């Protein structure tokens, strides 16, 4: 039986198939933009900073603002559960956990009467930059999704 010779074009077929397969894939290294996370973090950012700005004039009793801490913690816990279920979202989940830890620390300080103008002057920019960083990350993800 005569085996037909393999032409140079036939030799190239596996190479072409591999390249074709590779270029048809889109590499994903990180979870995509999440509009809900972006919106909720933006709202929390604004509420938190408005409260701190108001409290720097007169710090309210903890009981009068306990609702703010409850709502903020529940919002973050829901977002953490949401992102935990998304593959490659470890960075966002860790960031949300850090924000939650800070809301809890602020609550604890408030309950212990540690919150005053000097305290707020120190933590206001920290919390602003923390939430701003998460929003910048979300904006980068949004820009990437739009391109």
């Amino acid at each position, binding site marked *: 039986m005569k085996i037909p010779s393999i032409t140079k074009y036939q030799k190239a077929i596996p190479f*072409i198939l591999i*390249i*074709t397969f*590779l*270029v*048809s*894939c*889109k*590499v*994903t*290294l*990180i979870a995509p933009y999440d509009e809900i996370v972006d919106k909720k973090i933006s709202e929390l950012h604004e509420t938190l900073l408005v409260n701190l700005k108001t409290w720097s004039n007169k710090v309210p009793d903890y009981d009068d603002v306990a609702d703010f801490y409850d709502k903020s913690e529940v919002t973050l816990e829901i977002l953490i559960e949401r992102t935990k279920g998304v593959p490659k979202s470890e*960075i*966002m989940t*860790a*960031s949300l956990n*850090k*924000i939650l*830890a*800070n809301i809890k*620390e*602020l609550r*604890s*300080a408030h309950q*212990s009467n*540690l919150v*005053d103008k*000097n*305290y707020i002057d*120190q*933590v206001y*920019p*920290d*919390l602003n*930059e*923390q939430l701003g*960083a*998460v929003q*910048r*990350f979300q904006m*980068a*993800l949004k820009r*990437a999704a739009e*391109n």
Partner: protein
Amino acid sequence: MEIDFKAVAADMLKAIKNVVGDNIKDIEDMVDDELEDFAKRTAILTQKVANGDLSVEQAKSILKIRKNAVETVILSAAGIGILAAEEAINAAIGVLKNVILDAIPGVSSIL
């Protein structure tokens, strides 16, 4: 059709540089400015504790919040860096894809 692999590689590298360049600036802005601010505020914090404007308990609480904030800034910068890598890889693959589409007529239906 002959494929000029040197030109393709150069185009892929250019695509990578364009994508990484945009994102690196975002990362530099975020990390440089904000880490410097954190350091300046911590220097002020030590002065305020020394002056008695803040108690040690308050300073401990502030530093816990600051540590979490710094870690979040770094995490976000890392996230943008990974996103830059993802975009760079896909931009390079995009260049290769266009070359193949030009070189092999009819292949577009399976890409």
